[in-house]
């Protein structure tokens, strides 16, 4: 006899399992568990919209209430992916609208979303609650107006760093007077001024509003008025913080801010004038998240603010904070988990501020809970990296951008191999790593061997040869995403480790030395990968096989060739007749 868990019992157990990783494991146990799991999964995550067809996802998860999709590769953020590459939301929206009318939430990242998509969402999903678009493009404020006017139970509308065709601020006025369900509204990326009286009334009647992120066009007097109406906010993104205020007006604003006793997160603060920062002091003790990365304010003013933020867990700031400022943060902000330091003048050769590797060393010494780092700096040293790794083995995400390509350790002139070795070995839970500076193949040998939990790795201007790629693809057991630009490896390591690519989500390579011939060969041998050659200069099939291609994007897929490739993207499916005569495998 054998024991079998009745599916009703399994259902009950699965009710408590939210993590999709766990649910994926459950679905591999046996067919009946696969069935029970798929019929109970509510939140579906698809990390690459081309890895699987919309129809397959919709068919597998009939009870889906929330879909998260990611489109373009990460390097699209830095203009390395040409416009028109792909990542269209439409086929997904269409499939969902047809088969899944009870859908409540759509979260898209780096996808092309049109007004038609937004109108379709508004028209098709009666219970639609949440739209979160991150780094998306292709739509206008008209599409947003459709969502605002039609989605009766809308709770979340968040446009995070999207590129929107801004036809004016009318969209906000489309929220009906009866709509009171908003919990979160983020229109910080839009330029146009909305009709302020409509915004005021919207905020007044949405008593559950917890998160409000305004755009730059909202003035300080506007902000004051809104805060008076919504003191229950937990997250606030201010508008522009630089209008001239009389002392009375400033005091009024201060008072309105201090009434927000539950405020945990503060952002916006564009062009903030230093003399206005004290208006924020009252909420500092409660803040857990502070985004000062648009505040061009000097170190002393930043420190005056930050030393009051004893509960701060997440800090985004510009390099204007300098080493001294970070030293103060290390002393005062003991709960810090995440630090991002952005360059104030990204395109200048010389550092314009006193921010060096020492700043990050201070943080690693003082902030015991540090997990996540993004740090832009002109130059670095191995000693600093070694110290940081020793101080903070808890680091899970470490992204260092040494702005000068090929910059060695500026004290010893050596490559930064030893420093990154220390990070790879010391930070045992390292999940994400971006390396920079002068690095030889050795650095990647260390990373390949020691970074056992590394899921995502970004590399630029590094390495000497194919060994670099070979180390990574034959090591790094948990590697899911690898993105590389301007590194001198060629075909060999890629072809030799082709098997690895099916265990990963994707591999991006641009301005490397991979030949068209290798791409063809890889495509033929690995039918479950899409090997995309992205080349705006020449159609690859007109070039000799040995010529290197501009960019390659390789990802595993069950969906087969995509049907929406532009001219400048080639896959073997465009020329399936490529003869085998000049290709051979040993």
């Amino acid at each position, binding site marked *: 006899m054998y024991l079998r868990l009745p599916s009703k019992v399994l259902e009950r157990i699965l009710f408590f399992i939210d993590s999709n990783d766990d649910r994926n494991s459950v679905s591999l146990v046996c067919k009946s568990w696969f069935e029970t799991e798929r019929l109970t999964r509510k939140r579906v995550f698809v990390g690459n919209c081309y890895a699987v067809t919309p129809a397959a996802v919709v068919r597998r998860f009939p009870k889906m209430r929330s879909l998260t999709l990611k489109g373009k590769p990460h*390097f699209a*953020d*830095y*203009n*390395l992916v040409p416009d028109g590459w792909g990542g269209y939301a439409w086929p997904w929206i269409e499939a969902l609208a047809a088969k899944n009318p009870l859908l409540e939430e759509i979260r898209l990242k780096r996808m092309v979303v049109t007004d038609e998509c937004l109108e379709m969402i508004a028209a098709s999903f009666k219970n639609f609650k949440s739209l979160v678009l991150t780094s998306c493009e292709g739509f206008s404020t008209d599409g947003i107006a459709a969502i605002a006017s039609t989605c009766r139970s809308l709770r979340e509308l968040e446009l995070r*760093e999207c590129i929107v065709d801004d036809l004016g601020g009318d969209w906000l006025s489309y929220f009906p007077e009866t709509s009171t369900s908003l919990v979160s509204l983020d229109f910080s990326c839009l330029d146009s001024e909305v009709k302020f009286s409509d915004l005021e009334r919207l905020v007044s009647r949405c008593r559950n509003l917890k998160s409000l992120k305004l755009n730059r066009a909202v*003035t300080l*007097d506007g902000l004051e008025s809104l805060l008076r109406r919504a003191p229950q906010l937990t997250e606030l993104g201010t508008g522009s913080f630089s*209008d*001239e*205020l*009389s002392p009375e*007006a400033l005091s009024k604003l201060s008072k309105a801010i201090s009434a927000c006793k539950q405020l945990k997160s503060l952002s916006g603060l564009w062009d903030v004038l230093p003399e206005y920062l004290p208006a924020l002091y009252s909420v500092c003790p409660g803040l857990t998240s502070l985004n000062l990365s*648009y505040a*061009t304010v000097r170190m002393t003013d930043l420190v005056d603010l930050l030393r009051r933020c004893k509960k701060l867990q997440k800090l985004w700031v510009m390099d204007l904070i300098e080493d001294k400022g970070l030293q103060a943060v290390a002393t005062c902000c003991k709960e810090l988990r995440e630090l991002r330091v*952005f*360059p*104030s*003048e*990204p*395109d*200048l*050769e*010389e550092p314009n501020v006193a921010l060096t590797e020492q700043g990050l060393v201070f943080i690693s010494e003082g902030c015991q809970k540090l997990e996540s780092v993004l740090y832009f700096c002109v130059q670095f040293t191995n000693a600093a990296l070694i110290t940081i790794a020793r101080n903070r083995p808890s680091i899970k995400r470490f992204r260092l*951008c040494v*702005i000068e*390509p090929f910059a060695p350790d500026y004290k010893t002139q050596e490559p930064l191999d030893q420093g990154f070795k220390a990070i790879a070995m010391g930070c045992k839970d390292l999940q994400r790593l971006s390396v920079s500076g002068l690095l030889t193949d050795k650095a990647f040998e260390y990373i390949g061997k020691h970074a056992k939990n590394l899921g995502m790795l*970004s590399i*630029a*201007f590094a390495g*000497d*040869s*194919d*060994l670099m790629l*070979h180390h990574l693809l034959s090591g790094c057991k948990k590697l899911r995403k690898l993105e590389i*630009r301007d*590194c*001198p490896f*060629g*075909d*060999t*390591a890629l*072809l*030799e480790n*082709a098997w690895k690519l099916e265990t990963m989500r994707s591999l991006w390579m641009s*301005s490397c*030395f991979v*030949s068209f*011939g*290798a791409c063809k*060969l890889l495509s033929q*041998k690995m039918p479950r990968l899409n090997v995309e050659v992205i080349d705006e200069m020449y159609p690859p099939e007109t070039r000799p*096989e*040995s010529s*290197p291609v501009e960019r390659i994007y390789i990802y595993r897929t069950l969906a087969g060739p995509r049907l929406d490739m532009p001219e400048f993207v080639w896959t073997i499916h465009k020329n399936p007749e490529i003869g085998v005569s*000049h*290709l*051979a*495998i*040993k």
Partner: protein
Amino acid sequence: MAYEEVNNELNLKDTELRLGLPGTEEQQIEVSCVLSNKRKFQNNDENSLKEESSPSPAKTQIVGWPPVRSNRKNNNNNKNVTYVKVSMDGAPYLRKIDLKMYKDYPELLKALESMFKFTIGEYSEREGYKGSGFVPTYEDKDGDWMLVGDVPWDMFSSSCQKLRIMKRSEAPPAL
């Protein structure tokens, strides 16, 4: 390539997939250094510094480097923005506007009207603004207060430092 020298651990040649008929030597791709001719940043140092007209040491624009999203780069580039402060007699708050947003006087005046909720009246060269209690004035590069509209738009937008919408009663007769 460098890997050929490392044959104690890796036998890449034995296991590699080759491009070429069996028995032929594989073709090596010519690689002298990373700075090959198709790289954008090959324009580093020598060429671009000559092309730079401004004296400041602006770095060569390598595409997508440093890896900062474009909205961050634009924010820090205040050099392109010409904000002027706008005040109105009797209004509690100043505003700031970017003169580049407007291409002529009617557009600017319309924007001011909507910003401060008033009407500006008809302009005529001889008599200035008639028909309203307000007179739009500006301070130019020389510190003089002038009537908005007296000089050609381009001259105005490049010399205007500040705008003030005066009450007619406060305005000097010359305006």
